[in-house]
């Protein structure tokens, strides 16, 4: 699966790693340049940004929000936010892709949590085993990028579970601790260690 059928949506899965990394860097640079044009009101550039990011944004939002209709709403909010605040993107503070994905993930968890409050968390009454399996399965089906899968697999089990539940499941570290029956401090540490290992494995630290 690719991010979008319309544009160059990142490197094809399974490409040799060095080529893939170089391609990714180039794509990231291009996205940053496009965002600069979007900041000046360039609608064509915005369409190109949409084509590059909509698939990824939808992917992460759907993982967290789950409900397809609501996911689309959130995606629309995120992408409008990209349009509205493109001038706030600062390449000094990270890649364009990380900026967009941060907006997306944050909005997705905000949506889920505000809804949870309203619905008294009825939607997510996780018994630890099913919660992890559910999230992991939903996500694994979409993890078509060999590199990420391989790097996730290099984490310890607790690191992987913590990262997966937090990022794809949208759970807070406190909830993750409860789900996994592990001390809160341990989960915090595993999340950080896990992400550091993931970052090093992916070679994404710029």
């Amino acid at each position, binding site marked *: 699966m690719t991010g979008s059928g319309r544009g160059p949506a990142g490197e094809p899965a399974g490409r040799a790693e060095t080529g893939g990394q170089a391609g990714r860097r180039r794509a990231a640079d291009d996205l940053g340049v496009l965002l600069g044009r979007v900041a000046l009101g360039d609608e064509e550039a915005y369409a190109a940004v949409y084509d590059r990011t909509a698939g990824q944004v939808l992917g992460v939002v759907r993982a967290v929000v789950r409900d397809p209709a609501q996911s689309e709403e959130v995606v*629309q909010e995120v992408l*409008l936010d990209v349009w509205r605040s493109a001038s706030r993107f600062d390449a000094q*503070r990270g890649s364009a892709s990380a900026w967009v*994905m941060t907006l997306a993930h944050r909005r997705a968890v905000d949506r889920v949590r505000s809804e949870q409050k309203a619905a008294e968390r009825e939607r997510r009454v996780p018994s630890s085993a099913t919660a992890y399996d559910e999230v992991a399965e939903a996500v694994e089906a979409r993890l078509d990028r060999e590199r990420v899968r391989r790097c996730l697999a290099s984490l310890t089990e607790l690191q992987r579970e913590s990262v997966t539940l937090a990022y794809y499941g*949208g759970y807070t570290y406190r909830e993750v601790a409860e789900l996994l029956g592990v001390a809160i401090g341990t989960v915090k*540490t595993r999340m950080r260690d896990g992400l550091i290992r993931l970052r090093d494995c992916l070679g994404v630290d710029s």
Partner: protein
Amino acid sequence: MRSRGDRQAQSVHTLAGAYAMDAVSHAERARFERHLSGCDACRQEVRGLREATAALGAAAAVRPPDALRERVLRAAGRTRQVPPAVSEVPVRRDRDRRRLGLRPRMAMAVGGAAAAVGVAVAAGVVTYDMQNRLDQAQGRDLTVAAVLTASDARMMSARVSTGGTATVVMSHREHALVFTAAHLSSLPVAERYELWLIGPAGARPAGMISASGRGRMVGPMVVSGLSAGDQIGITVEPASGSPRPTSPPLVMVSLAG
């Protein structure tokens, strides 16, 4: 043995992973961001972790429905953008700037129809309505733009006890504030609202408010010469104005910070 402060800093720092995955509460997020603002190493770390989470997100990509594209692009065409931060923007409108004798930052602010949105985002407490009112106002006065676009601009709003709302955008860096009010109760012809800077040394007149008709927005008025500890207040005075307040203030806005 480590001090309590050290342990706290350590425990805040451990949150970097959870923070990068938004796995924290709003309060924790705010606290961690305060910590980040004073910790270069932490910012660097979060930046790296964010690249990792972005890769996780990208790996979950799916094909979006075709209809979504059109919907989003159309909505964007109707959505106003946050103006670029002043320092990052190439200066344009040279001709206009020369003609008006503006400093570049002012020219930018006047050029961007939505400059006040930037202030709104910075202040984080502003309703759309207020921002809109300031938008309408800003073209009228170029000094207003300097305050609105100041990097330390803050916006505050307060209810006037006899009705209406007073809104202040202030910049200590510019030593000035912009005052606007809306929906003030109308006064008898012989009376007018007067604006005051009220500091430890007493009240200094800051201008008569010319309200024209009920419900209308007044201002923007520019008040310069702010000092530490000043508050801004409104009283009702004889139409010619008073050198000192002769009635209790209907609203006071603290300008601290």
